[in-house]
């Protein structure tokens, strides 16, 4: 029993660091998406990767690296707050853009490389 526990304790920091790394990579991917997508609404979708999976994986990694249960509780509270406030903020942004009359780009965009969202002439 103690051997199993030892193995778990040895693997835990490595796994935590790995999860943090994957979360960081996902955050970078989300940022790349924000820069590449054509208009405001599609950029929101790219940012939601950073909001959801990147944040979850990073916090999960930090939980595995945490020295005490108090830290785990605080990380859980942060995660809960992110998941409750994130969509509210996204919706507020989207709703404000919609109310202001910003028209989204509709239809398939295959291989278009200009970042302005306008049809290439």
């Amino acid at each position: 029993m103690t051997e199993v526990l030892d193995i778990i304790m040895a693997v835990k920091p490595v796994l935590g660091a790995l999860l943090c790394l994957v979360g960081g990579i996902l955050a970078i991917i989300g940022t790349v998406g924000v820069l590449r997508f054509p208009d405001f609404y599609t950029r929101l979708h790219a940012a939601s990767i950073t909001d959801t999976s990147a944040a979850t994986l990073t916090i999960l990694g930090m939980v595995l690296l945490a020295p005490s249960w108090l830290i785990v509780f605080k990380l859980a509270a942060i995660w809960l707050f992110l998941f409750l406030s994130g969509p509210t903020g996204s919706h507020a942004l989207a709703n404000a853009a919609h109310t202001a009359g910003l028209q989204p780009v509709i239809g398939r965009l295959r291989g278009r490389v200009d970042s302005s969202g306008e049809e290439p002439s």
Partner: protein
Amino acid sequence: MGYFIGLIVVLGALWLGLSGIYTPLLLILATISILLCLILAARLETVDREGAPYARAPQIIRYWCWLIVEIFKANWPVIKACVSANRDINPALVKVKTQCESDLAKTIFANSITLTPGTVTIEVEGNKLLVHALYEEDATPESFAEMDERSRRSVDRRATDGNEQVSA
């Protein structure tokens, strides 16, 4: 009264978890701060079914677990769209009808849509939601039906009404 007890339990657990120092002085200060929060919440009249929905906690937690899996599943297409060399997206605006009746259920449903990568709720009007989706083919009304049904069941109690609506 039940809502107040739920709020006291949640605030107490939050304080105990965040503090970590359990000396008598700090425990007294915690009691005072919790009481202050309760008085403020009572004066704001936010301690009701929406402000303290802890009676439905088991159902909401079950819904939450299901939602996390859905969110991770929905992440893949968006990640692929972000990094693929050929930017292959098909944005669209979709109208989604919801069966949710209470404001809390509607909020949970709309926020679930926003939380899922690839779809954002732009506007809520009555029982219709305006949703912007990254892929038109993924945002059919059927794809939202299960989320709608689950969020309605997790908050609105009346399951039989919904079944009649589905069969009608």
